[in-house]
């Protein structure tokens, strides 16, 4: 059985993950491994996860996505989740998945702006 994997693209110092398939449990876990390895290996300063094509989530996928975002954040790569569909948002809220600390944006464009602002803020505070 070939394991499906979600590609991780690098744009400047930001990692871009676009989830275009319906996630299964092992795809989600593989993404978690791949992404944390890439952040450590390539010194990324931010991660953008696009889930606009994701139409179904269960509690496990929801929690895994939240975990991935939190892991990236503690590895000093702020994460923005973009393009969540209304149905997915309702499901996640009803399931009670803790996504409290995760930053979100409407689309990739706004997500990139948010990441730039976060990086700029961090550099400013680092210099001060």
């Amino acid at each position, binding site marked *: 059985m070939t394991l499906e994997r979600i590609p991780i693209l690098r744009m400047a110092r930001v990692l871009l993950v676009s989830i275009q398939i319906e996630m299964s449990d092992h795809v989600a876990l593989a993404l978690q491994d791949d992404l944390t390895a890439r952040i450590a290996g390539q010194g990324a300063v931010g991660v953008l996860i696009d889930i606009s094509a994701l139409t179904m989530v269960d509690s496990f996928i929801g929690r895994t996505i939240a975990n991935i975002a939190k892991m990236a954040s503690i590895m000093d790569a702020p994460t923005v989740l973009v393009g969540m569909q*209304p149905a997915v948002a309702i499901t996640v809220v009803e399931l009670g998945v803790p996504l409290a600390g995760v930053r979100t944006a409407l689309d990739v464009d706004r997500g990139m702006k948010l990441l730039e602002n976060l990086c700029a803020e961090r550099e400013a505070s680092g210099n001060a």
Partner: protein
Amino acid sequence: MSRITSILRSHEERLLQAWLREQGARGVRGGMVRDNELRAQAQEMLHLLADALDKGTPGDRSDAAAYAPLRELLAGLSRTRGSQGFSPTETVRFVLSLKRPLLALAAEESGGDKAALFDDVNHLNLLLDELGIFTSEVHQKSREEVIRRQQSEMLELSTPVVKLWDGVLALPLIGTLDSQRTSVVMETLLQRIVETNSSVAIIDITGVPTVDTLVAQHLLKTVAAARLMGAECIVSGVRPQIAQTIVHLGVDLTNIVTKATLADAFAVALRHLELVVTKKSA
């Protein structure tokens, strides 16, 4: 059954008079149905009843095929009366008030044959009772349909999502929020956020008479879902009583931006979008 049929046919006028008198005496409101209209309906029912008794086999129940035209007439009549605001009693009485004059006539025409009369009375009783029940059921159903239609109309009417500015949506909520309505509200709002690519949504609860824990819970969920999609939610129109209720209920709204008026919320939204309103002359 030819005895009843012949009574229906030969004494039609007499029966009709007695039946209409009976209906009048038992308080069918005058003016709601015109006299000649009522007469025409009654006459048609008598014809159809006679036809059905002719066509059907003796002892038929009212759900037999021969009674289909009669049932259709009663269904139509019941539906119109339902929409005209007749009570179920008044509607059913149209059928049941035929019993007394018809049975009286049957007794008169029986010529002392008690066994035959008993059979006729028995059958007529059964038939008219069943038709009465049928009429009342149609009446009930037509009223229920009206209620259902009004409910769905209310649901659609009450959830407009309006665009205040590029990137700012407003959702003025009016009336009591139950869980079904709130889920419709939630879905429309989130859908419009995606469609219009708005980053701020204002939920105005000025028109919501009461906020209980359930409503607050729904509000919190909507705000959380919108936030997950990357849009900020502001709740506006928190009236003094509602603020008091929310605090007394112990609902925690500290994670939500709340404003007293829609204007305040709009100002926050503009600030969020880094827009400034200036006076022209300044």
